[in-house]
């Protein structure tokens, strides 16, 4: 598909197909939104604004709600109910229920069989589709780009704009191709790819840009793996990351509740096959990584860009020529209580968290479970496994994964954001160290004073059974 013969990128095709009004010198582009995902934390003030102005939700039939951020993940009580201990969270969840009900938005409430993390349920239900524009008041909306959608996080004012008009004002971002060539080795996963990318470009490296992940190693990833990669685009500063749809995409989508069916399915596939970037399409910027050279990654600092191959040593601020970067590293190491030159392998940890919109899907749980099976979580470690949705939980239980985790001494919990955001009772205690499959290691992110090492589900599982940060490749080889 070309525009006057000029080859176009995947991003340009989706952008152009959704432009209600072109960008001008005076105004940003007006972009039509196909799907709006809403949750309890970033929507209440937007609904209040609608009420104040007497506005309706323009397209409730293109909007869907779920409860995920402030929901507890504690096991159900005897009545099958997940108790909410926090009064403020309870009020926020009640407010969300009322808002969705008043404005006609379908919503999955806490404990519903389809409830879960917003970025897990969209794809799971077939709502997330190639070529769509998708937004949510959550920066990890970039996840949905794994399907070749243009998906990005927005603030609460913008949530209000989309609720009221189904459109957004947007300045057109630049494009950046990230080629990941070659093949991943044993014990190396999608999470390691994205942590390596962010370590290379830095957490502001993608500001103002949309990533397109390309190359053999991306093509060989499962949809879940692609979602892991796209999910953390925002940690590289890019609001959106995309992967061209292909047979892997279509196989994942086929038969899902909201996916097209029958002859619509064939027509949809024909359309989706026109989406990938044309040969010769030009990106504003391009980088290439070799998957062959990757090993498991881990972060040592207080942002996701502070990551390194797990066998390396913590960098020394004295070696950093940039004074601002040096002071950031000083501050990070002080917070993490780590020393320059220290090896992280063998570092004692307190908690392992497997979950979040980055790594809570069925393949993530299968990977962790296959590693844990027949082993025990170290006595000194609390391991929490939090499925991304009720459907993931159900699937995992049907495969017996919950039994594997429980037998090893891990906690098997209800679906939600849990310890990734620590606003729901699941949190680190001050000073504790966690190996976490989530997406942010910011100061206090997993609980005030808590210290986070970001890593893959395999590295997290290896560390859980070792009681210290461990390289999964070593244990896989034994």
């Amino acid at each position: 598909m070309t525009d006057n013969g000029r080859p176009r990128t995947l991003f340009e095709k989706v952008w152009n197909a959704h432009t209600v009004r072109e960008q001008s010198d005076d105004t940003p582009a007006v972009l039509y939104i196909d799907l709006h995902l809403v949750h309890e934390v970033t929507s209440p003030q937007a609904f209040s604004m609608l009420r104040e102005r007497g506005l309706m939700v323009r397209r409730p039939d293109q909007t869907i709600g779920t409860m995920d951020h402030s929901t507890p993940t504690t096991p159900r009580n005897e009545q099958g109910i997940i108790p909410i201990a926090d009064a403020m969270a309870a009020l926020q969840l009640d407010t969300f229920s009322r808002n969705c009900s008043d404005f006609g938005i379908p919503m999955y409430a806490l404990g519903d069989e389809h409830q879960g993390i917003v970025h897990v349920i969209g794809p799971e239900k077939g709502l997330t589709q190639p070529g769509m524009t998708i937004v949510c008041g959550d920066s990890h909306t970039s996840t949905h780009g794994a399907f070749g959608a243009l998906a990005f996080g927005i603030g609460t004012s913008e949530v209000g704009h989309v609720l009221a008009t189904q459109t957004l004002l947007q300045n057109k971002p630049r494009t950046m191709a990230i080629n990941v060539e070659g093949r991943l080795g044993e014990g190396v996963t999608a999470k390691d790819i994205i942590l390596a990318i962010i370590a290379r470009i830095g957490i502001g490296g993608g500001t103002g840009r949309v990533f397109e992940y390309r190359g053999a190693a991306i093509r060989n990833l499962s949809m879940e793996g692609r979602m892991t990669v796209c999910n953390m685009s925002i940690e590289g500063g890019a609001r959106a990351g995309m992967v061209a749809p292909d047979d892997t995409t279509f196989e994942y989508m086929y038969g899902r509740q909201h996916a097209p069916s029958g002859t619509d399915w064939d027509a949809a596939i024909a359309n989706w096959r026109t989406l990938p970037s044309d040969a010769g399409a030009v990106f504003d910027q391009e980088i290439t990584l070799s998957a062959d050279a990757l090993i498991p990654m881990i972060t040592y600092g207080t942002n996701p860009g502070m990551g390194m191959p797990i066998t390396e040593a913590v960098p020394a601020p004295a070696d950093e020529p940039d004074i601002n970067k040096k002071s950031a590293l000083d501050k990070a190491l002080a917070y993490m209580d780590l020393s320059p030159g220290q090896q992280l392998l063998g570092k004692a940890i307190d908690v392992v968290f497997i979950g979040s919109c980055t790594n809570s899907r069925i393949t993530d749980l299968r990977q962790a479970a296959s590693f844990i099976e027949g082993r025990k979580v170290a006595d000194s470690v609390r391991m929490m496994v939090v499925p991304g949705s009720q459907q993931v939980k159900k699937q995992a239980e049907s495969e017996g994964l919950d039994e594997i985790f429980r037998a090893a001494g891990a906690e098997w919990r209800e679906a939600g954001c849990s310890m990734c955001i620590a606003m729901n009772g699941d949190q680190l205690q001050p000073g504790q160290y966690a190996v976490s499959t989530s997406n942010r290691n910011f100061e206090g992110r997993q609980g005030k004073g808590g210290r986070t090492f970001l890593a893959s589900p395999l590295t997290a599982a290896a560390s859980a059974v070792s009681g210290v940060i461990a390289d999964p490749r070593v244990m896989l080889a034994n």
Partner: protein
Amino acid sequence: MEKLRHIEGSIVGMPVNDIDTDQIIPARFLKVTDKAGLGKAAFCDWRYLEDGETPNPDFILNRPAYAGASVLVAGNNFGCGSSREHAPWALLGAGFQAVISTDFADIFRNNALKNGLLPIVVDRDTQQQLFSLADEDPGTTVSVDVEAQALTLPDGRRVNFPLDGFSKYCLLHGVDQLGYLLALEGDVQAYEASKPQRVTTTV
């Protein structure tokens, strides 16, 4: 939104790169359903000691010399991370009208502009000069002319900063962007008529 034409205020420096929105306001304060009172939570985990109440005397915003500062000068890449609009709400609640940095994360910049908190992008030398001024001479004031997109330093030097025309119009006139979008209803209907609906959530 109030009109924002001029800012005249004293500066306070936080020479830390990559200040993320979790630092600006930790997630545990996001259980609110309105925007009120978030100023207290701004930089909460840096601002208070472990009990969460006693001011940390070492934290810059707690030093009496910087009381009343309304222009925050920050390290590079301010506002990265979470999309929470609570971050600009908290900064406004804490008395800030503008943040100066070399660059801002995209979502934070959008959120700030929609609330009348002005993100001012300056070159690195200006940023460093402002850090020095704030450090050496607490109470140093700067002035900002939104219309002219100009920041005036105490030595009289004027530094221009980028601001897209649409955001500027909204700031100067105290209008939000929603009115503009609502007025495009005809265009949106025409768009919808020209394309099949991509997905329906209600069935």
